[in-house]
């Protein structure tokens, strides 16, 4: 496993390049197929509203998968991720139009954990429509 970023070059507070990920109804159908999660709240507007949701919402696991791309793109090697956890605080609401929704992800190095293991903790922030959609979103990454 070969991260592109060296532990020695990283400082606490350093920001990773932020990214914005679009999500449309078509994205959710594709993700449902790839992940095997066919819960209708992710593609059936009538069903979603009947169970009290504002509209179709993205799979939490989809949002989680997008958010970590900020870390894997930065580290270079996705295998450098040693731990990754999130809390699903708010849903990403996906309207039935061409734009869909946006998931905006920023991240920063919160701590250097272990000089021998060369691990850092990265704290992530994921927003959609002005609301924080993931809480306690953290990754531990093993750097070069």
């Amino acid at each position, binding site marked *: 496993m070969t991260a592109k970023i060296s532990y020695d070059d990283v400082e606490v507070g350093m920001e990773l390049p932020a990214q914005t990920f679009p999500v449309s109804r078509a994205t959710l159908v*594709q993700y449902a197929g790839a992940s095997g999660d066919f819960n209708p709240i992710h593609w059936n507007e009538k069903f979603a509203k009947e169970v009290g949701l504002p509209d179709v919402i993205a799979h939490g696991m989809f949002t989680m998968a997008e958010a970590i791309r900020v870390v894997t793109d930065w580290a270079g090697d996705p295998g450098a991720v040693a731990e*990754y956890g999130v809390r699903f605080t708010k849903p990403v609401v996906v309207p039935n139009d061409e734009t869909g929704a946006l998931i905006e992800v920023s991240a920063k190095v919160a701590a250097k954990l272990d000089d021998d293991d060369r691990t850092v903790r990265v704290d992530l922030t994921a927003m959609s429509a002005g609301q924080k959609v993931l809480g306690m979103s953290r990754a531990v990454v093993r750097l070069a």
Partner: protein
Amino acid sequence: MALDQSFVGRTYPPTDPYEVGREKIREFAEAIGDPNPAYTDTEAAKALGHSDVIAPPTFVFAITFKAAGQVIEDPQLGLDYSRVVHGDQKFAYTRPVRSGDRLSVTSTIEAIRTMAGNDIIDIRGEVHDEAGEHVVTAFTKLVARAAKEA
């Protein structure tokens, strides 16, 4: 009705192995729009020190969540799945999942709590490869929302 606390600590039998295919990894990477070559190009994955293409970090959830179905659908536990939402998810990796892995999941109920009428259940899924080596542990918190009075 609160869930039975005696289920805490219960471990379910390991699942039959799930064989990770390179096209399934590609399909997943495409679905999340991630062009990282480590997911599709064997040479690129090898350049990073992997023996074959690897899966994105959250790919394994499809396998651990299916395994957690043993718990969720255990009639003795009596969880109302129609009210279940995903609360938290965490993964702790020993190594990334890669193409060709045959993965088995052992699910354990770690905790059961009731808060404001909601049932909260923590399930730990230990994922091992065919050689018995640990690959990843998935920690899944599910919340069964309280039934509203009719």
